């Protein structure tokens, strides 16, 4: 009898695992289906899907770094500010006649540096992530405004504007270079998360920090790297933001970190650490983007969108919780 129970238990575990993987896909599919029915003319078109993909790039790139941070049991509230800082630094450099590529690298470096500082505070100074990154959120926002002289920074047109262009000048690309960057990044960070020591250690720390320390993992150093990596990914997202705006804007992306965190959580990331995946995060980001796009198209007002997204975030976590409770 016990054997029977054990076997059905194993089957249950498998079903649950399967469900947790396809769950977000199902959600995404339902949303696409719903809007396709509501707006059959405009919504399910190739061009519209490209638009949505383009709109997802910024959140998705930042959310890849956030996935690592959340899996390690942390949080990063400074994402929005770092995106703004990146746009400002990039714009200033371009404006000073720096090569656009170097300017973009400079923007990414500025964001990475903020991640390095957060990582140092969290890893070595043992300041809890919420506080360290809350502080960094204010600092980076302030520095951006200061550098930009409290106004938008105009920069001459360069190929950087092309990154987020929906109709790239290189026709074979089909989608914007930004979407390609998102796809390639996703593949790299997925492999890194699943098969590299860095990824394994990130999971271990989030799952049980004491055990990780016991197993000889440099927990402090790892946290330092995880937040630095988060800053780096946010920097790339910031360059995309600059490309979309075509100016440096110190007031852009206020509160964007919440979208980024929501994408990770909808995709199955657990704020208590140890759980999450890049694929899930991407789907989470797409769920929100499709919702916004579909609501705009069907003329559903902004405030309803906000309510729906709020419900989806809570719903995703509630379903996850239910699944866990059944498991124990």
């Amino acid at each position, binding site marked *: 009898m*016990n054997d029977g*129970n*054990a076997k059905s238990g*194993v089957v249950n*575990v498998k079903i649950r695992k399967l469900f947790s993987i396809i769950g977000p896909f199902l959600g995404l599919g339902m949303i696409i289906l719903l809007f396709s029915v509501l707006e059959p003319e405009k919504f399910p078109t190739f061009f519209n899907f490209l638009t949505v993909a383009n709109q997802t790039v910024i959140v998705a790139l930042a959310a890849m770094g956030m996935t690592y941070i959340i899996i390690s049991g942390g949080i990063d509230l400074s994402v929005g500010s770092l995106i703004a800082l990146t746009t400002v630094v990039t714009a200033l450099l371009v404006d000073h006649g720096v090569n656009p590529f170097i300017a973009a690298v400079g923007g990414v470096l500025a964001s990475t540096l903020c991640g390095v500082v957060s990582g140092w505070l969290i890893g070595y100074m043992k300041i809890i992530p919420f506080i360290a990154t809350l502080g960094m959120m204010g600092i980076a926002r302030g520095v951006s405004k200061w550098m930009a002289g409290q106004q938008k920074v105009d920069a001459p047109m360069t190929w950087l504007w092309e990154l987020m262009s929906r109709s790239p000048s290189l026709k074979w690309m089909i989608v914007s270079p930004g979407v390609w960057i998102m796809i390639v990044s996703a593949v790299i960070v997925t492999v890194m998360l699943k*098969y*590299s*020591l*860095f990824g*394994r*250690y990130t*999971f*271990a720390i989030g*799952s*049980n920090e*004491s*055990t*990780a*320390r*016991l*197993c*000889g*993992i*440099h927990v402090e150093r790892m946290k330092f790297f995880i937040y630095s990596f988060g800053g780096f990914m946010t920097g790339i997202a910031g360059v995309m933001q600059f490309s979309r705006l075509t100016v440096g804007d110190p007031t852009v992306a206020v509160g964007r970190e919440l979208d980024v965190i929501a994408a990770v959580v909808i995709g199955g990331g657990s704020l208590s650490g*140890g759980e999450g995946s890049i694929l899930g995060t991407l789907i989470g980001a797409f769920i929100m983007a499709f919702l916004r796009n579909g609501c705009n198209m069907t003329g559903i007002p902004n405030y309803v969108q906000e309510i729906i997204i709020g419900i989806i975030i809570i719903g995703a976590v509630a379903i996850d919780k239910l699944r866990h409770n059944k498991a124990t």
Partner: protein
Amino acid sequence: MPDIILSMTGISKSFGGVKALRGVNLEVAHGEVHALIGENGAGKSTLMKILSGAIKADNGEMFLDGEPYRPRDPLQARQTGISMVYQELNLAMHLTVEENLMLGIEKSQFGLIRRNMYRDRIREALDTLQHPDLTPNARVMDLSPAARQLVEIARGLITDTKVYVLDEPTSSLSKMDTEHLFGVINTLKSRNVSIIYISHFLEEIKYVADRFTVLRDGETVGHGDVRDTTTEKIIELMVGRPLTDMFPRIPHEIGEELISVSNISSKPLPEQVTFTVRRGEILGIAGLVGAGRTETLRILYGLNELSSGEIKISGYSGITGKITPPVMIGRKVAYLSEDRKNEGLALECTIAVNITLSSLKKHGTWGFVSDRTLNETSHRWVDTLAIKVDSVTNKVESLSGGNQQKVALARLLEEEADVFLLDEPTRGVDVGSKVEIFRLIGELASQGKALIIVSSYLPELLGICDTIAVMHRGILGSKQPVEQWDEFSIMNEATSGIEGTV
């Protein structure tokens, strides 16, 4: 027939497929101290959790004061008259004694707590306990462990407790505090309050208890009057077999010196520790909980900071700079945590992850690892150590205590360590797995490893170690061959230190 206040009959409880209790009986009389004896994993804590309403029995009946007793939850159990005093105290450290005593039973009016209602009772309770530091306004975090324990007892006095459960109450107390506690127990007895007394220290039970019940592998294997029963008889009941079968002796030779520790100390513990261990030697460190044994092992592994002193591993250069787990793993030192649930294992991770986590680097190429290699490695250890699992990709939390401990040990073996620091290696492990772990320890010694074992269970140390040293208040006494020790001499040194050193 004594006048029975509490009876538990035919209590059974299973967790998953594991039968923790199989028809246990326990009867406690009015105003008696009843010792509940058994090894770790015998089912004592499960039985007490059922009594306290924390978990429900699958089968069996309970009567309290002649009435059927079926607690819904711990709060109801407490209101009915059952008070638990656990090893890990359930106190809010930041609140005062008074606030702690009223926690959960506050009467409020318009949302405001009416403090006066309980003031007299609190004063009376604290007077009964006669401890100088216990004042209503003292913050619990400022009190000594002994005084904190008394706060828990006072909590029971306020709710008119009929039966107290004291779980290892003296394990972290000094001799003086222990005597004070025994005084309190006598006061309680004189008020016709009953006490279920759980302890590993048989001398203590001889001294304080009236009757006893012995549990083994989830069954009641004996009960009787403490006065009419010899200590040897009780141990025999606990272990259930002659000591020789319990501790398989694997022949091993003692070789050259492998680890030498001189005068190490840390804040707050230990104060002074010096010893050496040779290849093939099993050193046991005995002592009371809180004497600094665990802290000593943690320093040796780099988890606690070293304030002064030196650690030398033969064949490696002296350690300059901070000692951290990676540094010590690099010197082939491995550590088994006493706290398997919170530290030793990542319970929500798979068996394979837990076995390979500390040696991932070894399996990696260019910083990348494949699941297949890790699973194969884990399979090898699962077979070698006979760990009962369906698949190495299952979560560790699905395993029984004994199998979890084997997973933790497999990790140390995978590290290919030379020095094994084992902190309570058989805590929460069933008897069968215990014997297997003892055999493994012997085999490691025969392979020329050095093993340092901390255990609170003396027969275990006496059964498997080559040498034993006793720790008393942060100071480690000198190491002696196991033949020169017995339970009495170890306890004597553990409780009072060596003459002239304190």
